[in-house]
């Protein structure tokens, strides 16, 4: 009995000590976790996200960290590579919460990956803030409580080429070919919004083909698009596919007047890999250092100076996502996840990406622009009031 009593007392003491140590550890740093694609087909996006997240955290730590319970605490960012695989994203998110003790999370890139991590965060009631997930695909999954996304809306993106052609009075034969992957956003943009908008604008959809996200050979569908004589070709594909498809369009002797390649034509390596074939290719965008947002020009300069690479808009959405989350932790003044989540909901501020204010669907829309590759540089060509270059039309023929 006496032994049992002593054992109980000892166990209680150990538990108390462990609790004290744990809380002391928790108070030493604020852990934010992120699972992003650093390898696999989407690694081109992950590299920018990593820099954006790390830079925002570095800046916060330079200022002493985040003020919590009256004390400034440094932030530690833990990044895991999800290998462009939603299953790995889900596993990484679990690990970030259970092994790394992340208090809150930052998202991956593209709907498949962001949503996979967000579903785990939602189940564990942990706030997660993400860019890089088109809003329609994000909203369609469920009613979110702990997941927050600031990005463009697919409707805005998909209608942009048609609005641009109308604004600039571009003359085509009004025939459209749509080639889109069967991923969540490809299915929405290529399967629904592009055909509907085309019809509404008086265009005829001559071809609408979808394909899995691991295809590399597009010989038949490119030949079909060529045979329709479509002047407008709309593609929604990830970078490796967009690069392969652009080459195959050239080698099939197919040169439409307008070529839009959503997603795939976004990273700089699209232009590097395709060389002159990139000239004239359009892709939806939402950010450029020339935009009048706080710190926009400076962020791009810092990226280019740090990495010796050309900036991408993903540095802005990832930087802003990290800032939104850290501002919410500061506003909550505690590491209580519920209170941090409530503070995210109240976000209403201008960030490097523009104004961020979440609506009832936990989303904040970023206005869309159209970028065009011209001599290896992405130039904003639409809308007119934000354009920093002239539209190259028609698409130059491959030589």
């Amino acid at each position: 009995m006496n032994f049992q009593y002593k054992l109980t007392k000892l166990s209680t003491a150990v538990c108390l000590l462990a609790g004290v140590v744990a809380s002391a550890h928790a108070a030493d740093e604020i852990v934010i976790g992120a699972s992003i694609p650093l390898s696999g087909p989407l690694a081109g996006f992950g590299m920018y996200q990593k820099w954006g997240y790390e830079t925002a955290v570095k800046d916060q730590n330079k200022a002493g960290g985040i003020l919590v319970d009256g004390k400034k605490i440094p932030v530690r960012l833990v990044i895991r590579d999800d290998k462009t695989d939603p299953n790995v994203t889900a596993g990484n998110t679990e690990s970030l919460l259970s092994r790394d003790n992340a208090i809150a999370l930052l998202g991956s890139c593209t709907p498949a990956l962001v949503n996979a991590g967000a579903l785990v965060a939602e189940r564990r009631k942990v706030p997660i803030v993400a860019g890089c997930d088109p809003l329609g695909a994000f909203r369609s999954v469920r009613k979110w409580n702990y997941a927050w996304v600031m990005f463009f809306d697919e409707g805005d993106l998909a209608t942009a080429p048609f609005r641009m052609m109308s604004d600039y009075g571009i003359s085509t034969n009004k025939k459209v070919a749509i080639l889109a992957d069967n991923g969540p956003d490809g299915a929405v943009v290529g399967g629904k919004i592009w055909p509907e908008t085309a019809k509404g604008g008086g265009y005829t959809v001559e071809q609408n083909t979808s394909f899995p996200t691991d295809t590399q050979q597009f010989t038949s569908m490119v030949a079909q698009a060529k045979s329709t004589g479509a002047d407008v070709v709309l593609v929604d594909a990830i970078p490796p596919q967009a690069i392969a498809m652009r080459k195959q369009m050239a080698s099939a002797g197919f040169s439409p007047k307008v070529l839009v390649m959503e997603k795939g034509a976004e990273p700089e390596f699209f232009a590097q890999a395709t060389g002159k074939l990139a000239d004239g290719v359009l892709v939806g965008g939402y950010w450029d250092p020339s935009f009048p947002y706080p710190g926009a020009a400076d962020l791009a300069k810092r990226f280019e100076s740090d990495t010796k690479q050309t900036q991408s808009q993903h540095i802005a959405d990832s930087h802003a996502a990290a800032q939104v989350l850290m501002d919410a932790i500061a506003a909550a003044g505690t590491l209580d996840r519920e209170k941090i989540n409530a503070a995210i909901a109240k976000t209403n501020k201008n960030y490097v990406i523009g104004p961020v204010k979440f609506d009832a669907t936990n989303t904040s829309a970023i206005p869309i622009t159209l970028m065009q590759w011209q001599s290896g540089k992405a130039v904003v060509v639409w809308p007119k009031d934000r354009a920093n270059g002239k539209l190259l039309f028609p698409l130059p023929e491959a030589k």
Partner: protein
Amino acid sequence: MSLPNFEVIAGSLASGLLLGGSLSLIALGLSISLGVMRLVNLAHGELLVCGAYLSYFLLNYLGIDPILGLPLVGAMVAVIALPFHRLLIAPLAGKGMEAPMMTMFGFSIILQNLMLLSFSADTRTIEASYATQPLAMGPVTVPKIYLIGFFVSVALVWCVHMVVSRTAFGRELRASSGDPGAAATLGVDVRRVHAITFSMGAACAAMGGILIGTAFSFTPSTGATYLLISFAIVVLGGVGNIFGTLVAGIAMGVLQSVGAVILGDGYRDLVGLILFLLALALRPGGIVSGRA
């Protein structure tokens, strides 16, 4: 579902036939490793990607044209592969198929990660003027690179056939393939034959990788797709059967195109895998009888 017009169908089938040549070159490396060494080389896809990277850098830094540089890249990869055979495969001789297979699986992961660390995960493509030029043959247009790839592949497959059927090394290779024990008793250095066979397989994969990297795009993780399709071609053509691999590769290219025309380009691999299962069930020895 309406079928596309004649030009599209004919163009797709011609493209499939030509691309099938390159597929057979890729599969040939796997086939000879499997036929002679009983080695399921799961790193075959990564060796293919290695070839593409080598050619990419030779072009960008030394200006060596990818097609003219094919023998050089093949030789480089063959030489690089030799010590790996000695270190990883040779010690496992006579210990069944599982141990070497798992070793090559581990080797594939290491290679993939090394390429990721060294070259990043960016998508690349080998730039050459002929890579994006169309070739019109009457109403049918095919990519010029497919035609070049076809002739290069057929020539290389023929070279491998000549080495195997007309040289002293080929005699030793065939003896080692049939009965390694008996071959060793007759004085054949089976270990040396296996090492050279492994290198030849790696060279075939690397040269196929150049053709793929020039026609399409590649990343460090591209290899897996071509490994799968190579297995299907090896089974269709018969393990270790050089002529069978060529025929099966071309058949695979054409049938994939039929699948692409009927179901869409995204279903090319589905057709290949169905063929693989059918071949396993109906003609496990391959569609072409005999062995090289």
